[in-house]
């Protein structure tokens, strides 16, 4: 919690919000480019963009600051485990949303097959899987073992 408090100053949070909005727009444009309808369903698409941005960009700005987002967007390697986690979840979330689109064209005639629902759900599942993946990778295969030790190193870095 101490990390969050530390970043709770006004300018920083406004910048975070701006980055969040930019992320929303980015995902909106991406969804349209991938074939989402722009005329009739722009509201849904915008909501989808906001949702995915909330899953990916928002935690990044919240926990590691906007600079991490910049670093990620300019394709730089993750400096530490904590950044790596967000990178990984970002990839998993996008992959989940990508796979979620597979349900839309099927002729099952279900209400939940409407456009952003399956993709949002896929993104959510991908997000969760991403966290699980990084957790398993870290605690089963990782070199650093214990939870407390890791946390300490983080707070040490940011204080």
């Amino acid at each position, binding site marked *: 919690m101490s990390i969050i408090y530390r970043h709770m100053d006004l300018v920083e949070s406004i910048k975070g919000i701006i980055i969040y909005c930019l992320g929303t727009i980015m995902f909106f444009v991406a969804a349209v480019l991938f*074939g989402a309808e722009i005329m009739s369903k722009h509201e849904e698409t915008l909501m989808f963009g906001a949702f995915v941005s909330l899953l990916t960009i928002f935690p990044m700005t919240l926990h590691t600051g906007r600079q991490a987002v*910049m*670093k990620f967007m*300019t*394709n*730089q390697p993750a400096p530490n485990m904590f950044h790596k986690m967000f990178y990984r979840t970002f990839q998993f979330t996008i992959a989940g949303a990508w796979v979620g*689109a597979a349900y839309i064209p099927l002729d099952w005639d279900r209400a939940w097959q409407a456009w952003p629902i399956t993709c949002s759900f896929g993104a959510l599942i991908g997000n969760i899987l991403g966290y699980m993946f990084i957790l398993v990778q870290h605690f089963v295969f990782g070199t650093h073992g214990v939870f407390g030790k890791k946390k300490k190193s983080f707070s040490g870095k940011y204080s």
Partner: protein
Amino acid sequence: MTCRYVLLVSWISLTLVSALLLFSRGFLMTRTVLKQKSCCAVDSVHLEGIRNSRNLFVPDSNCSQKFCLGVGNTRAIIFVVDALRYDFVAPYSGLEEQYYHNKMTVLDDLVTTKGARLYKFIADPPTTTFQRVNALTTGSLPTFIDIGSNFASTEINEDNIIDKLISTNRTVVFIGDDTWTGLYPNRFTRQYPYPSFNVWDLDTVDNGVKSHLATELQKTDWDVILAHVLGVDHCGHRYGSKHPEMARKLSETNDMLREVVESMDNRTVLFVMGDHGMTESGDHGGESHKEVTAALVVYSKNPFLSSRLSVAPEIQQVDFVPTFSQIMGIPVPFSSLGATFLTNLPPQSEDYGSNTHDLASLIVWTNVEQVTNYFTEYARTNSQFPSSVVDKLLKNYTSLLEKYKNLNIANFSTFMEESLKYMNDLREVCRAVWVQFDSFSMSRGLVLIFLTISLGFIVVDGLPSELLHDMIKGPFLWYGFLFVAASSGLCCVLHYFKLISRLELSLYITSCCSSIVALSCLIVLNWYQVAEHWYKLNKSSDPLSLITRVIALVSAVGMFSNSYVVQESSIIPYLLTSLVWVSVIDVKLEAVKKFAEKCSNFSIFGYFVTSVKCKLILLALCLNVILRLTFYFWECREEQNTNCHRVKNISKTLSCVMTVISFATFITLARLLLRNLGNLTGWSPPIFVSRYFPTVNVVCCGCYWILNSLPTVNKPKLFFSWQIQLLPITVFFISGGAIVLLYVFPLCVHRTYNTVLYHHGNLIPSIFNKMRNIMSSHNLEDRTPVVYGLATVYSATFINLSIFISFLSAVLLGESRAVVNVLMICTMFLLAVILSIVKFEKAKNSKGNCFSVPWWSVLCWALSSSHFFYATGHQPTFSTVQWDCAGIFGNIVSTIVPGMLVILNTFISQITHSLLLPLLMIIPFTVATVWPKVVHNSHEFRNGELELFQNDDLRRQEMFNLLARYILFSAFKVFVSMFSACIHSRHLMVWAIFAPKFIFEGVSFLVSLPFLLLGFLFVERISTKISCLVTESSHID
């Protein structure tokens, strides 16, 4: 050497094609629709006539039928219950009673107490409603493709009972499934059609039928009522046959029938029938016992003709047509193949009893004559039947004729049996040709195409290309050809000695098998190298190749699902976009690692903006926006009903102006590009063509579109129709001529002998040289040639080619869709540029790798080609084929030219993509010379596209590899569509979705093969011409 590569490519593709043809022979049964109509020479036969009927042969052979029997005032109610299986009606007393048993109590009652007759009504496959309704009215065996029928609409123009009824002034009322009104538009006096498409809707059609049937039955003006209820069929599709809903639907139908039976009068005949059955799971379409066994109940308050004639429990569906015709007193439709069912005929008059035999034999004989007439007519115009079979049947016919002439009571029953057997035999012959899936050819075709694809994959992907090159240099190719030729020759010899009956089939199989044997010999002999090569490849795998595999698999496996085939238009660009973005994002920013520590955040951002990756992302964004724009040119197919929104309200003038403007911009840009590359200097023929002809083309196209969109009232005042047709013909011939000319003179370069040489990068020596030349006047004759545009010699030709191709297709596609062409060409060039930059990033520091085209580039190209198939307003259904393009040259009598135009129009995207496939290999070198910033080691590519010319062997190898990869991927798609059509041959949608998909994939594969070879030949032609140029120049020196 070039010749050998062409031979190898054509060998592989011919093997694939023959496997494809083998499969389609088994899968696609075709039948020609004959347009003749039947008629009666003598309208009604009196009993006196029947007595002497054997002497009553009418010599006039214009009519297919001599007599039409029947009582003029008979009325009929045909009540079709879709998918009414036999055991839904037949009484059941067993222990395992299902929901569908014993629900049709009214029919049961009629059969047991009132003399109605219940039959097993055997339908012919394909057991789909569309084909069954066709068979129930024409009496023939409709196949999926009835040649000669109209593709654009579903209207039946073969002879049929509905037309016959109307021509004899009967009133026909129709209620129910709208399939009928699609087949017979504007025929019914009153019609109440209901939509049949939504199989989840169990009640709309039935309720409609129920309400209208009651009022219609009250009226007296009708002669025939046709009612078609769908509830049972839809219930089967939705829930399967063993479901409480089925009991409800059957009971409702039963109630409807009760009303009908109660209101019938003495001269009405009731037919209750199922058009096909269903499996236990409720599907139909195939030929299993449960699907083909429908029920038929015939009831009349009058007793039927005779109970002395034996009642068979089973009749064929096609038998309905002649029986119905005899009852109603209309001629049997010309192409009917059924046998009249005597036990359902009403009596001719009160004292028919003594004449039963005469009447029966007469009816049977007219039937035999009618069927024979049709069969001989068909065999005369068409060579589908083997001649030995035709001769045998005709011999039987003559012997029957003898028997009929000497008919008496004693041999009556043998005559009847023999004529029934004769008609049965004849129908079986037709059925073997028209109806049955030939599982032999299908399975062989599938196996052979699979083997060829996999062996071809091993040869292309597994064999190191140097080894392949050595192999092609050596005698292997000749041995292989010799082997194939020898086996085919053996086949012909065996056929000559009558040891093989079906030559075509056995030729397909032997040529395929021998090619497969030859290829597998090659692989087995070089297995060690293949294994080694793959092992190396495996070690250096990257995420992009994995994702390529996933996307290739998804795009192929999707064809097994009907909804993916229906929505493929939006799935292909989705996959293409994903692949492009993955390949772009996969590119690493090399220098950032070092950068990151030192610099601040902002300068990293600045670095990113100037990096190659940022440029790549911008290019990909451009490409993506273009792809997204093409979505607005989609055409919807019927099944997409809710998910497809077309933008319709663009005025014709606006689209016309937009198209002309975009074309003008396009050629202006292309000209600017060519000029800057130096390929527009001088006056050699190709340069002249590329300088002026596009402008002429744009003017002609624009004039044509604008004049064509004038209101039809004013048009004839201004000009004749041939004058306006002159414009597209001009465009066509200019473009076609330009392409031929480009093949003959492919080099868009200009050669001069300049005394001044500008050395690249070394200014001082060149100035010195010039100074020296000026000072020493005796050395003026420096004959060193200067060639303009040599660095982009390949791409210049291909740019010109693409311009002319786009004009050809613009004329074909018409003004509203021609913009897509410009977008398509832009997409292709952008894609090639993006892929080449990514390739340079991947293949760092090794120049040799830049020749080979990786799988993901090929996949992108293939996806793009299928995307633009949809974007040019096509869908894999026959109803969306743009038939109007066949008429751009006016009315041409032959079918070949309009047919070619339609095929060109439909597959223009595949054609363009396969012709311009070499771009994937050429563009990297163009990029390296034109835009050296994005290439790391650009100094290695100073020669530009001349690298391609200099590395002769490498170029041919990799060109072959590229072609083979593209062909193999297309063939793989064809294989998957074949496979899905094969597995889904029982599926409800097989004839609506899977079979058309297979046909479109197959035809696009066949069409693209020659253009692929043409593209390859273009590259080789340019290379030989360059070598001519080089030797010429050095000779002069």
